[in-house]
């Protein structure tokens, strides 16, 4: 751990200015990911700008939906009555992540921007393109149980670990970002990148850009939604595969659907192909399976994680089936 300075920002603009002008500065949320990385030598910032106490800690109802402040704690968001009522999948995704203590500390922005749990990324004694571009990817040919089956590259096969982000991507969330040049809004799905040749970049954010809020547009049928997380350990572990789904049924037919996968790619994976395949189809197990297959046709598992393909398929089918049964 290298020595560093600490600044508690008074307002968002001050925080942005402080980080923007200093290449070694980073924002600090709850610190549950960043501080670990500092101890491990994975991150070596020379300044922490604490944004966890900015007045961005409220969940507000807007004309179009909900606006979640960047500093809202994971446990508070999961317990919020409007979240539980309007998008239960988000509450469930949050509660399936980490532990009670961690969720009490972790912030919404920090959760979105947490880095991969690839064990090689977290171990500075091994090569890793994400940590040290050009050094090589140790996961390829190594321990791949928690690695990607979709959208990976020769440079990096890591997955994004967040559960919350999977539900948010399914909900068409929009991220509000404040930068040195002003504010911008972008769909959460576009915040994340695939690794390609620059796996060191998880997102499209520029240095000094601060996430201030996440907007969740109202999606009435998400009141019946689910998050299913499959993992080795019953709690306190990352997804092998997870599925966030909301289903809009018209009798026995799928009027609309939202589907996203976790644990399978460098970003929370919106399953657009499966969604397309399902719209207008009967809500049957066969149709669910065909939709899952449409999405997973592009899967390229690694030696050691082949199981994720059938696991993802089965979990998609099971989640949609449960939602259908709930809807009867």
């Amino acid at each position, binding site marked *: *751990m*290298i*020595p560093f300075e600490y600044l508690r920002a008074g307002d968002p603009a001050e925080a942005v200015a402080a980080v923007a002008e200093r290449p070694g500065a980073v924002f600090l949320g709850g610190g549950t990911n960043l501080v670990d990385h500092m*101890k491990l*030598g994975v991150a070596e910032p020379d300044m922490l700008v604490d944004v966890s106490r900015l007045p961005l800690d409220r969940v507000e109802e807007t004309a179009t939906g909900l606006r979640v402040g960047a500093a809202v704690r994971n446990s508070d968001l999961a317990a919020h009555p409007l979240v539980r009522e309007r998008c239960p999948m988000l509450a469930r995704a949050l509660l399936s992540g980490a532990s009670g203590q961690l969720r009490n500390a972790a912030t919404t922005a920090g959760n979105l921007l947490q880095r991969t*749990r690839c*064990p*090689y990324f*977290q*171990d500075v*004694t*091994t090569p890793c393109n994400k940590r040290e571009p050009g050094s090589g990817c*140790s996961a390829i*040919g*190594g*321990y791949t149980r928690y690695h990607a089956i979709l959208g990976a590259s020769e440079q990096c096969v890591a997955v994004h670990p967040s559960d919350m982000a999977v539900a948010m991507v399914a909900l068409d969330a929009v991220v509000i970002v404040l930068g040195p040049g002003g504010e911008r809004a972008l769909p959460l799905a576009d915040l994340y990148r695939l690794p390609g040749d620059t796996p060191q970049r998880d997102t499209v954010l520029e240095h000094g850009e601060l996430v201030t809020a996440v907007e969740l547009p109202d999606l009435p049928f998400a009141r019946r939604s689910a998050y*299913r997380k*499959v*993992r*080795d*350990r*019953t*709690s*306190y*572990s*990352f997804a*092998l595969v997870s599925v966030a789904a909301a289903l809009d049924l018209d009798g026995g037919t799928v009027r609309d659907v939202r589907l996203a996968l976790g644990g399978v790619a460098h970003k929370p994976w919106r399953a657009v192909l499966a969604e397309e395949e399902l719209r207008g189809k009967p809500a049957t197990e066969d149709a669910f399976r065909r939709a899952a297959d449409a999405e997973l046709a592009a899967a390229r598992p690694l030696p050691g994680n082949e*199981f994720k393909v*059938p*696991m993802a398929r*089965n*979990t998609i*089918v*099971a989640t949609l089936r449960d939602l259908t049964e709930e809807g009867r």
Partner: protein
Amino acid sequence: MTVQDRVVGTPSPRVDGRAKVTGIAAYAYDRPVDDPVYAHPLQATIARGRVAAIDDVAAAGVKGVLAVVTHRDAARLADTEDAELSVLQSDEVAFRGQFIGVVLAETPEIARHAAGLVRVEYDEEPHDTELRADRTDLYAPEQVNGGFATDTDEGDVDAAMAAAAVTVDEIYTTPMEHNNPMEPHSTVAIWNPGGGFPEAPRLTLFDSTQSVHSVRSTLARVFGLRPEQVRVVSPYVGGGFGSKGMAHAHNVLAVLAARAVAGRPVKLALTRHQMFSLAGHRTPTIQRVRLGADEAGRMTAVAHEAVEHTSKIKEFAEQTAVGTRMMYAAPNRRTSHRVAALDVPVPSWMRAPGEAPGFFGLEVAMDELAAACGLDPIELRARNDPRSDPESGRPWSGRHLVRCLREGAARFGWEDRPVVPGTRRRGRELVGMGVASSTYPYYRFPGSRAVVAYGGRGRYTVRIGAADIGTGAWTVLTQIAADALGCPLGAVSVEIGDSGLPSATVAGGSSGTTSWGSTIVAACRSFRRVYGDDPPPGAEAGDDMPENPDAERYSMHSFGAQFAEVRVDADTGEIRVPRMLGVFSVGRVINPRTARSQFIGGMTMGLSMALLERSVLDHRTGHVINHDFAEYLIATNADVMDVDAVWLDEEDVHAGPLGARGIGEIGIVGAAAAIANAVHNATGIRVRDLPITPDLLLR
């Protein structure tokens, strides 16, 4: 003659409970000392070769850094026989993660930061860490852990297998596992150049250990001191599971560091990462089990052949197949152990070494044999329950395995087990039940002594350098002493955890209560013999552990039956264990409260072993890559549902004055097999490789 019970057998609360829950119990690293120095180790990042150059200029220049000690300037050790303990004595690297130096600083943060600035160059040599059964360099060790014979062969297994009506011949594997007690290994070392006498020892260690006396004698040897010149203090220990059973390299490193800053105490605590290369581990095992039986399920052959690893620099050969030697009656029996010496850290004791992995192989094979014979698995075990020890021919001091199985069956509702695997559903879940036997030998190690002193006004002190690593030993020893002296529990205080106390053997092999307890009984009796019931204040008497002639005449083992119910999600393969029940026969139970905690703790560790634990050794780098608690999975509360343990009400009259056989390890033995057998019953899928993870059960 047994002690008359008064508090023995009652659920006395832990004598150290209040200190622990209020946080005032000082563990080794907590020990307040004046002007401490903090140590952060440097570890090799290659698995084999030599340290070619060390650049510590930047580290040494950090404000607050006192020294960087490496093989270039570390004090020479007097005894380097034990290569694990031969720390910083040469430039050689024998495994990845090995100590190659230590940074000493005014704060732990500075030490850790500076350690990160040290640049090391190596002459790397190719390494080899992969255990396979087809390796050509497997060898037969001279003996296996515990001093057991490497191989046994009786009758003609091959012929019996060829002739048998029903056979099982399968390979079972268990992965490398790490003990991971909650409290990491930690030591505070003080080197006093002027000292050398018991009052002012040359070397004082506040250590987290299962045996103060063995750490003392080992370090005395390594540093060329007389044992009286060394004092090791360890009253509270936050778990060990065997990994703190003997001195490890960090003890030597801490002392070398203390010598470099003579006079100032040095504090060293391993990080969780470091625990994966420096505190022992369980070898992976590859076990071939062959069973032969006639149509009625009477066994004719048992063979258990284990392949495992050890480190190149120090041999530790796990006794994986030894338990099979006495378990079931079959005229033709063979066991063997073959070992590959690899460029890996030194393996060591982990709760029930031998039995824990070995009974996964044997007891899953028994389940397979039962199925092949069309017999209930309990019935198969009952038909093959030997009247006397098949290996030694000696009578049992008490073998109640079948009683445990039948008692457990009744309590668990075994008759409700689905007969045909994979046929019972509850919603989207497949449901099944499994059973396995467990056993653990009765050990009592010689070498303990206890002293009883009367302080006046009805108060006694009993001194013995024993260890309570969270087991409840402290409480149990107090109960034993109170009954042996015939006085109330509150009148006795037992002092443990200090090498200044009379010598005690290790808290290991489930032997603590029997070894130390029988020693205390002897000391109390000597005391009464000399002073009667009305001793003068200041009266003192001691005694050594008495011999137990029955130990040579009887075969003494504890037994148990483990039951598990599992539910497997038919879509995702996720496994839940809603119920586990253990029924144990362990001789007399001294304290039902702490005993239950040992049993269900062992069973929980067995559940963890069954479903979760696996150290992933990356053979390209030679180190364990999932080396933290987020990635090395251990059962959480959510995984552990209804785990219950009961025991037979008995006393082993051959097991010394306490009638007790030891309980610390048996809980883990067979637990993983019971779960694997339940998974088979639920799904029809036979998993022979641990851990059993959801991907293996996907359809």
